[in-house]
C-alpha cells in the first residue's frame, strides 16, 4: 500500500543526472580555459565564468529546457574566450583593450592621486594591500603597481629591502624542491620517479631508522637527500628529519 504511492520511483533521478552531467561539463570547460583559481582571472574571465555558471544552473533546475540550451551557449562562450585569449597573446593592443594595463599607484613614496581616481582605487584599499605585504609606511615604497587582475605588486625602496644571502656574502646553499614520498603509509610513485628511487630504497631508509612504512603519516625528501618524516605517534617525537645524501 505504502509503496503504491511511488508510481515512478526515479522521479528525481532526471534532476540528479542533469546536475551531475552539467557539473562535469562545466568542470571540463573551466579546466580547458586553463585558469586554476579566481586570483588568476582577469575581470573578463571572471565574467565568463559567472555567465557559464548561470547558464548551467538554468538547465539543471528546469527540466522543460533541453540540455542543449545550456550546452551550446557555454561552448560558444568557451570559443569566444579562447579566441580572445589567442588575440591577446598575438596583439598587445587587443590585450590592452581587454585586460587593461598595469597602473602605478605609488611612485617613489608618492601616491598617484590621478591614477587612483581613474582606477577607483581608494587610499584605504591601497593601505590595506600594503599592510598585507607587511608594509606599514607608504614612504618605504618605491613602486606600487595595480596589476590587471586587481592585485597590487610592491617594490620597496632599496633602503627598506631585506638583504639577501648574496649581498651578505653568505653561502647560498641549494634551492632543492621537496617531493612527497609517503602519505598515510603508502609510497607515492610520482615522488619515487622524480627522486630516482625504488620502493626498496625507501623501505631500507625507514628500516635504518627503525621505522615501519605503515606507521608513517607523511614523508617528503628534497633533492639534497633530506628526509622529513611525520609518524602516526601522538607524542612530540613524531616529527623526524634525516639526511640521506
Amino acid at each position: 500500500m505504502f509503496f503504491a504511492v511511488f508510481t515512478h520511483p526515479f522521479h528525481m533521478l532526471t534532476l540528479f543526472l542533469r546536475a551531475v552531467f552539467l557539473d562535469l561539463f562545466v568542470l571540463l570547460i573551466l579546466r580547458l580555459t586553463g585558469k586554476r583559481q579566481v586570483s588568476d582571472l582577469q575581470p573578463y574571465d571572471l565574467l565568463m565564468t559567472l555567465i557559464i555558471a548561470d547558464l548551467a544552473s538554468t538547465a539543471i533546475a528546469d527540466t522543460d529546457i533541453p540540455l542543449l540550451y545550456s550546452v551550446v551557449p557555454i561552448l560558444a562562450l568557451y570559443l569566444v574566450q579562447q579566441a580572445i585569449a589567442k588575440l591577446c597573446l598575438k596583439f598587445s593592443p587587443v590585450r590592452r583593450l581587454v585586460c587593461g594595463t598595469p597602473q602605478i599607484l605609488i611612485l617613489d613614496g608618492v601616491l598617484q592621486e590621478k591614477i587612483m581616481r581613474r582606477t577607483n582605487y581608494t587610499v584605504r584599499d591601497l593601505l590595506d594591500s600594503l599592510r598585507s605585504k607587511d608594509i606599514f609606511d607608504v614612504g618605504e615604497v618605491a613602486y606600487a603597481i595595480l596589476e590587471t587582475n586587481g592585485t597590487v605588486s610592491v617594490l620597496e625602496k632599496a633602503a627598506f629591502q631585506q638583504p639577501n644571502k648574496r649581498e651578505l656574502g653568505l653561502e647560498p646553499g641549494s634551492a632543492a624542491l621537496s617531493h612527497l614520498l609517503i602519505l598515510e603509509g603508502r609510497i607515492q610513485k610520482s615522488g619515487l620517479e622524480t627522486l630516482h628511487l625504488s620502493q626498496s630504497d625507501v623501505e631500507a631508509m625507514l628500516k635504518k631508522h627503525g621505522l615501519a612504512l605503515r606507521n608513517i603519516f607523511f614523508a617528503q625528501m628534497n633533492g639534497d637527500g633530506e628526509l622529513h618524516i611525520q609518524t602516526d605517534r601522538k607524542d612530540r617525537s613524531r616529527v623526524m628529519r634525516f639526511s640521506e645524501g
Partner: protein
Amino acid sequence: MGFTIFRTAMTILICGFLVLLFLLPSAILSRFSVQANELIDKAENALLSGDREAAALHCGALFRLVRDRMPVLERFLNHASIDALDACVAVADCAVRADDPGAAAEALAEARSILVRIEGIELFSWNNLL
C-alpha cells in the same frame, strides 16, 4: 605541451560539434514542419470539403507524426512548445472523430500557429537575433 595539444583538439571538436548542432536540429525541424504543415493542409481541405473520413485519416497521421518525433524534437526544442503542439493535434484528432469539424479546424489552426512560432524561435533569422 600535452595540455595545449589536448585543448586544441577539444576546441576543434567543439567547433565541429557546434556546426553539427547548427545544421542537424534545423534540418530535423524543417523536415518535421514541412510534413506537419502538409498534413494540416490536407486535413483542413478535407474538413472544408466535408470529407470526414479523409480528415480523420490526416488528423490521425498528424497525431502519429507528432508523437513519433516528440522524443527527438524535445532534445533541442523547449518541451512546453512541443507539449502544446501535441495537445492541439490530439484535440483535432478527437474532434474529427467526434464529428465536430469546427473544433477540429480551430485546433488545426492553433497547431499551425504553434509550428510557425517554433520555427520563428528556433530557426535563425535576423529578427530573432535582435
